[in-house]
């Protein structure tokens, strides 16, 4: 991604000249406060939004002109992913995975997603009775069981309790390491990013203000953690 600019209809600049590159197999984190451009960036990569300017490639494919190819290699978890309230969790899983798999492979993927979601007998109940955490796990289970080359995860643990957040972090890390998948995630939880990510970009007002491994950043800004890095990088 190079010099990415996104201007919304109405003139608001969501991203303003962002440049970064994610290596195959790494877990890369975008951190920044609300409104910094994290979700806009992920949505462009996920083919949901079109960039106003700049260069973006996902495994060599252009998200604008080759959107269908990009969608084949990514799985996207939106910030507030939900599910169809009148379907059961199992129906939801089966529906989404059927878009990628068929036959025996589909059944394996469904089993895998059910295992990841770990909702017990609730998996056969309508989603309208699920808590926010259960819905998040359900959506994440579909994304992980899709086994894409690139996971695009927007605030994967946003709004969840400590226990569920920990479980999701372990799942993401485990999948990335086990299958060699690439992960691009956004978060404003610095501790989460520090735990999960190989490299991190700090974004502020649509621009990249710092990039590196968590350790490099801490050293560069003489900080004890990424929160201090962020404050120093942004505040000068």
């Amino acid at each position, binding site marked *: 991604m190079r010099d990415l600019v*996104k201007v*919304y*209809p*109405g*003139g*608001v600049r*969501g991203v303003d000249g962002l440049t970064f590159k994610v290596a195959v197999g790494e877990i890369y984190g975008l951190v920044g406060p*609300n*409104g*910094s*451009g*994290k*979700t*806009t*960036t*992920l*949505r462009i990569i*996920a*083919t*949901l*939004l*079109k960039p106003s300017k700049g260069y973006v490639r996902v495994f060599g494919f252009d998200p604008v002109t080759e959107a*269908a190819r990009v*969608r*084949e290699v*990514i*799985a*996207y*978890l*939106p*910030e*507030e*992913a*939900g*599910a*169809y*309230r009148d379907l059961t969790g199992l129906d*939801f899983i089966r529906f*989404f995975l059927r*878009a*990628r798999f068929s036959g025996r492979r589909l059944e394996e993927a469904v089993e895998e997603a059910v295992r990841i979601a770990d909702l017990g007998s609730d998996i056969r109940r309508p989603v309208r009775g699920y808590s926010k955490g259960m819905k998040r796990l359900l*959506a994440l289970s*579909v*994304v992980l069981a899709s086994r894409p080359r690139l996971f695009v995860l*927007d*605030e994967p643990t946003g709004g969840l309790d400590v226990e569920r957040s920990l479980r999701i972090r372990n799942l993401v890390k485990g999948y990335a390491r086990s299958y060699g998948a690439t992960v691009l995630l*956004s978060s404003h939880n610095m501790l989460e990013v520090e735990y999960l990510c190989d490299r991190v970009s700090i974004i502020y007002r649509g621009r990249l203000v710092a990039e590196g491994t968590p350790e490099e950043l801490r050293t560069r800004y003489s900080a004890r953690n990424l929160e201090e890095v962020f404050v120093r990088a942004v505040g000068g």
Partner: protein
Amino acid sequence: MVFASLVKKEVMVVLKSPVFIAGILFLVVYFGVLGRVIGVATEQVAREAAGSYIGVVSEDLNHVTQRLLHLANVTLGGRLVEVPTVEEGLRMFPAVVLVPRGFGETLLRNSTMYVYGYASLDSISLAQSSRIQLVYSVVRVLEELGRALVAAERGVNLSEISRTLVPRVEVRVGERVVDFSVLSSLQFSTMMFAYMVGILGMLALIYSAQSVATEKEEKAFEMLLTLPVSRTAIAVAKVVGAVILSVIMVIAYFVGFSFTLTSIRAPASTEGTETVVMTASIWDLLQFLGSEGVALLMLSLGLMLLFSGSLGLLIGSVASDTRVAGAVAGPIGAVLYISLLVFQFIGIPLNPLSSLLGLSVYGLPIAIFASYVLGVRTIALQATGLATAVTILAVLAVIRVFKSERILVGFSIRRRPRPTG
């Protein structure tokens, strides 16, 4: 106090929506205009019925008959005009009454007499049926005056004379001759068709509008759009899904309505009047339209569903939630549905402009009915062409919106969207 505040909140969150306000204004203006159109049309029909001249062919030279017709003409304000033949009469007037040879003799001797009535209609709309009433109004006058004449001839009290005048009415619709009972059946079945099809279209519109809006609310839409599935397939599946749901709902309506119909008993025929039994005969309609007309009608149904589904999807795509989608789709659906029924009721004049009804897609079945009933199939074909073009444009617009980011960010005129993340 708290409850009042809660109610106020419920009302205000909707009332403050510009879309809701625009919807109300639109409905007020639309129905104001529509009411005026119906009013003018109804007034015109009533005026036509009240002021129309009626042709009279008298085959009976009996002085009683001639006297009766003279009195009837005076009673009806000079609206009866003698014409040599029924054909010539129908060329000049909407209705003709033929008094057969021997009528006067029969009037003096028997209690039951017959006359023949002819009405010429430009369509099978209910409003046009008032022309048939012209025949019946003449028959009623002839019957009453006939009794008075007989009483005078015999020098007895009017109450001692009983006479029944039975009209044998033939209705000409365009170039065709239609039995009155068949006409009633046709009117009934076309109204039923318009009623059912209108509901079908309105439901398809609302269901498809809600399908996208609900999916956005359920936060599953973004995941769906990033699946390796073409956006065209997603959009078409939504339209087809909405159509299937609306068909299921209309079948439920139809079954319910059938129960209602079967529980209504038609009144028994009384001697001297032709009681019309509403048989709801679809068969009459099919025979009238012919295979080509039926095929076009089915095509119009398909086009209307596709158009409704696409229009609904467009509304749902740019709506932020189900409330906005409902606030927009509901009035639009109601407008289309009511327009369909109104056009069916007042009928349409058959001229080249009639094919423009196809532009609304919902008006296409009306144009097809009118066209085939009156035997001018070019109007139906032109209207179908226009409706097909409009439907294709609607489908292409939906696909375009689905492929663009507008499906997520919507259409902003004044408010600037807030970027997330």
